């Protein structure tokens, strides 16, 4: 006997959230979608362009397509580079943080400091730091004979941007790993001593496997952070020299706000968004899949 009452008024509770989502995401998003399928000559008159902007964007032989492909490849290269440095370095730093005593607090605060600095301040710090006339790094490198100039040399610009990201974000990886390491029960270390395992073996067979989940999260966060990065490299290099440090977001802002090329920019941002979502989804299915394998 089903005594439940058929009453859908409970949906009313969801209305505020729906309204919020509508104004914060759906309406702006649909505006972009509109632009991506239409062309405008101003005067608020639009005409249908079909998938034209998308074809343009995804075809590397066109000017816009070449720009997009260049920025995309640079962005993947940047994300890969910072992940390849920050993840191992973060693990190494976490292993060095003391496990108990007053030094824990001091070390954790010191490590967390870069995370508390606003993005554009980080950019400004490194921009000044790397200037060849007054910057400590720039002047020191110049005097020691290393060819270093962020505004003229792509290698220098990349080095500074990568170094800046490592400085800013390795702390987060280290803190996540530290939490993961703290969660390993002492019995594992004791058992490893009884079993005669050396330090490397303890790291390889206990610590690294136990950090797996934390590392997946750290990689996801750092991939997203570096893939959508804008403020810091823009403050340091403005995307230059030339296009050498123009990542997707920097290039997109140039196109949308600098050139007011709304159709191309709308298609650009939708494809950018889809790539981000796809990578997120891949990470998510990988982690959930790996977890379900544990239970089986």
């Amino acid at each position, binding site marked *: 006997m089903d005594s439940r009452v058929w009453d859908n008024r409970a949906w009313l509770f969801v209305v505020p959230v729906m309204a919020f989502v509508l104004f914060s995401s759906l309406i702006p998003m649909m505006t972009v979608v509109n632009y991506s399928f239409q062309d405008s000559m101003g005067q608020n008159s639009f005409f249908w362009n079909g998938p034209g902007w998308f074809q343009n964007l995804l075809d590397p032989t066109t000017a816009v397509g070449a720009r997009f492909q260049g920025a995309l490849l640079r962005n993947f290269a940047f994300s890969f580079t910072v992940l390849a440095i920050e993840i191992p370095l973060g693990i190494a730093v976490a292993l060095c943080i003391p496990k108990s005593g007053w030094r824990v607090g001091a070390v954790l605060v010191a490590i967390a400091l870069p995370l508390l600095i606003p993005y554009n301040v980080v950019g400004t710090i490194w921009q000044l730091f790397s200037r060849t006339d007054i910057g400590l790094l720039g002047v020191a490198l110049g005097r020691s004979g290393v060819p270093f100039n962020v505004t003229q040399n792509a290698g220098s610009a990349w080095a500074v941007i990568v170094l800046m990201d490592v400085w800013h974000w390795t702390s987060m990886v280290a803190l996540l790993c530290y939490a993961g390491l703290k969660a390993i*029960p002492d*019995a*594992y270390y*004791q*058992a490893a*001593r*009884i*079993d*005669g*395992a*050396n330090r490397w*073996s303890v790291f390889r*067979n*206990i610590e690294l*496997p*136990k950090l797996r989940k934390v590392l997946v999260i750290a990689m996801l966060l750092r991939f997203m952070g570096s893939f959508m990065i804008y403020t810091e490299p823009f403050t340091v290099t403005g995307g230059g020299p030339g296009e050498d440090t123009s990542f997707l977001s920097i290039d997109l802002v140039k196109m949308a706000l600098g050139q007011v090329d709304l159709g191309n920019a709308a298609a650009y941002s939708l494809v950018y968004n889809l790539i981000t979502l796809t990578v997120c989804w891949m990470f998510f299915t990988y982690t959930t899949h790996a977890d379900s*394998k*544990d*239970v*089986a």
Partner: protein
Amino acid sequence: MAQITLDGIGHAYGGDPKTEADYALKPIHHVWEAGKAYALLGPSGCGKTTLLNIISGLVIPSHGRLLFGDRDVTRLPTERRNIAQVFQFPVIYDTMTVAENLAFPLVNRGVARPRIDARVGEIAAMLDLTADLKRRARGLTADAKQKISLGRGLVRSDVSAVLFDEPLTVIDPALKWELRSKLKAVHRALDLLMIYVTHDQVEALTFADKVVVMNDGRAVQIGTPAELFERPEHTFVGYFIGSPGMNLLRGEVAGAEARVDGHVLPLGAAYPALPQGMAVTLGIRPDYATLTAGDGLPVTVTRVDDLGRKRLAHASLGGGQSVVATVPHGMGVETGPARLRLDPGKIHVYVDERRVAGRDLVGRAA
């Protein structure tokens, strides 16, 4: 393989104990003989895990010396002590297969591959893990994981001792019996010194040749299960071992008689060394206190617990003290007046919690 000697081993966390109470483990002298199975039994926080960790080297004692054979290993690190230890919760290496897990202690010590394979096969067979050898250890149940931990403890044939720290805590009750008897069989087969820490008396009594009962950082009695049951040297052993524990009654002793709540009880031994009328504690196990239809102390039964296999009566002696007594098979019992018989030979006399030996009466066992 050699015996392990505790030569005044004691431990105070933080070092420098001022009083007895500062010791987590009060200084103890004891020799663990090679090839025997021992249990360390006691409630939580009694120092038994500390003692175990001192033997394995995870804790360095603040006092005394630890000898493996004639070798002083007190300050030697764990990995150089040749000892195996199994912990309360399963510790497995996630990324390895069951076989690799079992082989790990041997691989780390550079044992030759054919010997490793043979030994792993042997241990896996003992623990019923043969079918799982190729599987990843991560996906197994807690039971199976703990079996792997046990296996890693047993896989080295040259260890001085295998230490178990409440290894069956996470195991399902039904499987506990099986694993316990398996461990016992493994002990017989491998002829290793095994020390087993537990707070479960059934586990201790079934596993061990000798049980060390610990309380408050002190080893209060070391003996065979039968000794602990029949002749507890300390009131703590009396009530901690046995279910329910020993009846402890306040009374006075005079020669071969005791006086409790106005009743006169004959004892199995005489205590001429104790002054007449001295206040003592008398201990008798419920198994030796029986309600009877014949002659006995007049008592009042206040409650009867039917445990299925046996019945226990709570009998008040009238002076505020009561005794848990066995109700014989077939005897009808209700709350109210009844008669109680205490086996004189099974009554022990305790002064300051410790048993006082009496002088045998002619024709009777103490």
